[in-house]
């Protein structure tokens, strides 16, 4: 069972701030982490390998420093890692990113399952996983919360829905995006960290994946960001004090003054 896991390096959103002047993320001094949903994708890949053998290849598109995310993925149990990095990829939207990832995946001969996190913690679009599958022309299931069973040609998974789950059977190869209910990711082990330190990370550029220059990076992106801004901070609401009767009559008066009742 050969598994590809697509990951993204994102800023640690628990402490990220937005520059009110430019409307951009303040990236200076903000720690970069593996997108939290992708940790579940890595863990699921590693668990499948532990059950069925084969290997887990992790890929990411990003600047050279995204290599640290790949090394962490190896510490978490992945076997190999590929960094897709080129200045020409900069500013890619979800479509250009999906195209780039799929071109890189085409350089990998043999794979059965591609796993992605449901969405990235920074962009939050949840589009790249399914789009990669579309470009590769393979089946995909989004929001998988459990892999029921896998055999040589097919897979059965539970897709999370708001009111329960769908049981879906698909042919292989397949692309799955996973939700956090699927597993409990392991902490990187000491031996994993030692392996990660020594691992050789393969790097691919636009040329080596045979990418069409018109479909990558900012110029290959139909989505262009016109403006970003921070919404004004909310002010506190109005507070009525006094005994219950007083509060109720003041509230009714206020709502009536506003023409709401």
């Amino acid at each position: 069972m050969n598994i590809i896991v697509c990951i993204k390096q994102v800023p640690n959103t628990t402490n990220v701030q937005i520059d009110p002047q430019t409307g951009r993320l303040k990236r200076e001094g903000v720690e970069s982490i593996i997108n939290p949903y992708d940790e579940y994708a890595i863990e699921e890949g590693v668990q499948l390998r532990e059950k069925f053998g084969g290997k887990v290849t992790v890929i990411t598109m990003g600047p050279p420093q995204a290599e640290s995310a790949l090394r962490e993925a190896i510490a978490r149990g992945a076997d190999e890692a590929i960094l897709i990095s080129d200045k020409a990829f900069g500013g890619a939207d979800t479509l250009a990113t999906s195209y780039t990832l799929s071109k890189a995946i085409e350089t990998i001969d043999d794979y059965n399952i591609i796993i992605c996190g449901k969405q990235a913690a920074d962009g939050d679009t949840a589009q790249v996983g399914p789009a990669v599958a579309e470009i590769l022309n393979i089946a995909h299931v989004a929001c998988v919360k459990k892999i029921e069973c896998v055999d040589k040609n097919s897979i059965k998974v539970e897709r999370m829905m708001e009111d329960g789950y769908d049981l879906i059977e698909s042919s292989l190869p397949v692309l799955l995006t996973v939700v956090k209910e699927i597993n409990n990711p392991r902490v990187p082990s000491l031996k994993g960290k030692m392996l990660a330190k020594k691992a050789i990370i393969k790097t691919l550029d636009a040329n080596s994946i045979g990418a069409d220059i018109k479909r990558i990076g900012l110029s290959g992106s139909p989505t262009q960001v016109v403006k970003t801004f921070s919404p004004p901070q909310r002010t506190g609401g109005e507070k009525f004090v006094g005994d219950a009767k007083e509060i109720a009559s003041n509230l009714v008066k206020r709502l009536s003054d506003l023409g709401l009742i």
Partner: protein
Amino acid sequence: MVMNYMLSEEEQMMVETARNIAVEKMKPVREHYDEKEEFPWEIVKEFAQADLCGVYIPEEYGGFGKGIMGLVLVVEELCKVDGAIALSLAATTLGTLPILITGNEEQKKKYLPDIASGKKLAAFGLTENGAGSDATGMTTTAVKEGDYYILNGTKCFITNGGEAETYTIFAKTNSSKGPRGISCFIVEKGTPGFEFGKKEKKMGIRASSTRELIFKDCKIHKDNLLGKEGHGLMIAQATLDNSRPGVAAQALGIAAGALDEAVDYARKRIQFGQPIASFQGIQHMLADMATEVEAARALLYASARMIDAGTSKRTSKESAMAKLFCSEVAMKVTTNAVQILGGYGYSREFPVEKMMRDAKITTLYEGTSQIQKNEIALNLIKESAAKSK
């Protein structure tokens, strides 16, 4: 910011791994295990998966080969969050060290890899009802019959009792020889005649199992004798020289965890219109706590490095000093953390009352603080006498 102790890259890796497990896996469940007094198997599996169980075991037996310093760093980091769950790992070290220190090659190959991988836990059986500080008072006997020893007697207060697979048990092989009549055996769980008795209900370290071990005509093959007959007490002493830094690390971790809680609370708690951290009375308490914790850490790391260097034949004094100082600091710091949190500190809503309960054991087991002082003084006198010869 923490004091720079020149940790190697691999040592920092161990600290980081332990911290990840402590924060991500242990913190969400620590109240549960304290309340329910259950053994934390789900966390033991995490320790195993992350390769933390064998940090002190040499690489040739499947460990990480990072010595007592490695053990100390891991135990300290885990205990910052919970000193009871981490004890499953620390007490396994105590049960394993007799094999590591005095085992022959076959014994090491047979037992150490499963302990290093975390597949099995270990326990150390020395204490009895009538043999606490005075181990020579034990009544458990091992009588040789052909290729076997027949064990009879009861051990009490055994950490990891019932949960561990591998036990190192001390018994008298020759009652007439006093301290030189004690031997040490490896006994596996499931051996006929080896059963578990009463489980203690304790003040703290409630996630840890503390049980009686009962031996009734328990037949142990002579291949399971560690070292030579009559060497038991020496094995116990050599073990404690290496394991006491582990208890010290547990104490240090608990103290450091309590200090963090106290500083955090003092910054946020508003009384008289200002954070209580702005009051000099609180500031001086925090300053004392932080200084004591750092002093404890410096003494402990120095002792652990000395043990690992292997340049001194005995390290009883240094181990005892580290254990004495760290455990007494843990008691002081956790008590003051409860004081700073006031009523909230006494409430189970906050973790410091548990830290105070967990800290107390560190001044008691593997020798009380008073026994540590005996050890230190005895060595001082010996060293002085050797000099004046």
